[in-house]
């Protein structure tokens, strides 16, 4: 199994396509950082418009932590498309190349192949996120410095002490990994059904786009199904950046406003992942390889 995983990773990281995602993430993060470096104060002024009406705000507001938050907020919606590029190709791409049948004539069970490929997709996803974390968090910290983080939410502002932020990012990236793994599972599952990679990639992206639109729309009829869409839960990482307050309305350092909701979101994502993985195994085991 370990050897199979190594082989799958070897194959993934030998393909030029794999590095498109890394390049795209680097470019996008760089563009946002450049934009914020040059014109970030305009953005901050805009975001703080209401708050500035009543308050004087001083400090390094546009610091690395906030920049990372802005980057994640903008990027994590689009990273699934990059994950899809690899995940939806894992089976279908091999079917298309004709290597799938050769691989399956080797003494390996199909379950092993699915698991190895799935874990390889997972490793790829994690590596992409770690790469993103290094660029979005550490590089931003180096460029913009650190200070307390102001999380400017729609209805209120959360001030997080600079010493209380880092662990939240660790959690957020773990959560994001879960979210991206859900996308990977979906792309992976769909890749079993096709003999070319275009179909599953487009299908996965379409599902993500449609689900995201449903998640964003504030129409009552869709609100009932929203909690069950993985796209709604994928932004659950933001939950780590909201804190509880005590009776004096003072933020409690080290707390999370809605740990239950974050856990529930994670639970739903895990449910998706396990469900899709099991479905992948079942379908793949029954599949006649005719490619």
């Amino acid at each position, binding site marked *: 199994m370990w*050897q*199979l995983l190594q*082989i799958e990773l*070897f*194959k993934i990281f*030998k*393909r*030029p396509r794999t590095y498109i995602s890394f390049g795209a993430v680097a470019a996008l993060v760089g563009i946002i950082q450049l934009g914020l470096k040059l014109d970030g104060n305009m953005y901050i002024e805009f975001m703080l418009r209401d708050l500035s009406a009543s308050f004087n705000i001083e400090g390094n507001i546009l610091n690395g932590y906030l920049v990372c938050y802005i980057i994640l907020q903008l990027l994590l919606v689009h990273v699934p498309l990059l994950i899809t590029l690899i995940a939806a190709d894992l089976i279908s791409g091999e079917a298309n*190349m*004709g*290597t799938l*049948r*050769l*691989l*399956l*004539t*080797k*003494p*390996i*069970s199909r379950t092993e192949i699915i698991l190895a490929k799935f874990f390889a997709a997972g490793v790829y996803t994690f590596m992409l996120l770690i790469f993103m974390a290094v660029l979005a968090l550490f590089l931003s910290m180096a460029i913009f410095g650190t200070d307390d983080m102001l999380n400017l939410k729609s209805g209120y502002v959360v001030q997080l002490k600079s010493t209380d932020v880092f662990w939240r990012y660790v959690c957020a990236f773990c959560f994001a990994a879960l979210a991206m793994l859900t996308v990977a599972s979906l792309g992976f599952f769909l890749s079993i059904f096709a003999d070319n990679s275009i179909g599953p990639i487009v299908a996965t992206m379409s599902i993500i786009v449609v689900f995201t639109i449903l998640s964003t729309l504030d129409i009552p009829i869709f609100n009932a199904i929203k909690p069950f869409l993985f796209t709604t839960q994928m932004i659950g990482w933001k939950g780590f950046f909201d804190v509880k307050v005590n009776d004096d309305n003072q933020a409690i350092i080290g707390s999370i406003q809605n740990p239950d909701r974050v856990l529930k979101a994670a639970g739903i994502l895990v449910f998706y992942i396990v469900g899709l993985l099991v479905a992948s195994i079942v379908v793949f085991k*029954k599949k*006649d*390889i*005719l490619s």
Partner: protein
Amino acid sequence: MHPVINVTNLSKHFKDLIAVDSLSFTVNEGDVYGFLGQNGAGKSTTIRMLLSLVKPTQGKIEMFGMDLFTHQKEILKQTGAIIEKSDVYKYLTAFENIQLFSKVSGAGKLSKSQLLDQLAIVGLQDRAFSKVKTFSQGMKQRLGIAIALTHDPKLILLDEPTNGLDPQGIADVRNLILQLSKEHNKTVLVSSHLLSEIQLIANRFLIINKGKKLVEGNASQLFDPAETLVELETLDNENAMIKLQQSVWSSKLQARREKTIVLKMNKTEIPAFHQSIVHMEIPVMSFRPKHSLEDYFLQLTTINDDVATIAN
């Protein structure tokens, strides 16, 4: 002789299509077993079932005395295969490909030199570190064979191994199969539409059509002198047919084609038959006794339809 493959009553249905229909055959140890049939006859589906790529609808497959469905891994460890054209990872080098597949073939860890030796067998030692996307079809096919052999399998399944190869490539594959059989004592099952090739290498044959077995046997059985086909082309086939049906040769009639009439008889009867048709004043355009497997095969795969025509 031990049967290496023993297939009983094997069928595969794809929705309405019956790709393989109650097929039974046996491949013995040391055989070079020729698997013949037209395109779409069910050869590939059968080989894919032997490799557990396709699940049979019904029937039993035993290989090395084990049931394929319960001992898949053990069987696949002793089996090497090429299915249609050999497809490998084009973005990897030949060496990376063979290394990668050897790791999952159950061969154990092979050293770099062992793997290079494998590539040398198929003449790819000089291109070992070139990306496969720069290879010709023949080179890919040879790489595919090298990959199929890395774990030293006892049984080799080759599905149309000469597809897309130039004459030199075809000859190379043919020689390799003979070498594997004779020198390394491998059992080989090879399917092809190039029947003349199979005729040169196989000792036993299976011919299928529309998923059904037409005939199975060794070369001497299939080319039984008593079963020689004679193809006759005349100026007036209709008249000739009537004359033949009224003659002593009527029992030898096999088929009536658009341009020819086919009869089956013992090789020794041919001179008498020749005299006889001259005697009957049938205006013969051509007279061809058929001995090659290809002829035999073509006759067989079309004859079933024709027998019905004659009966009518």
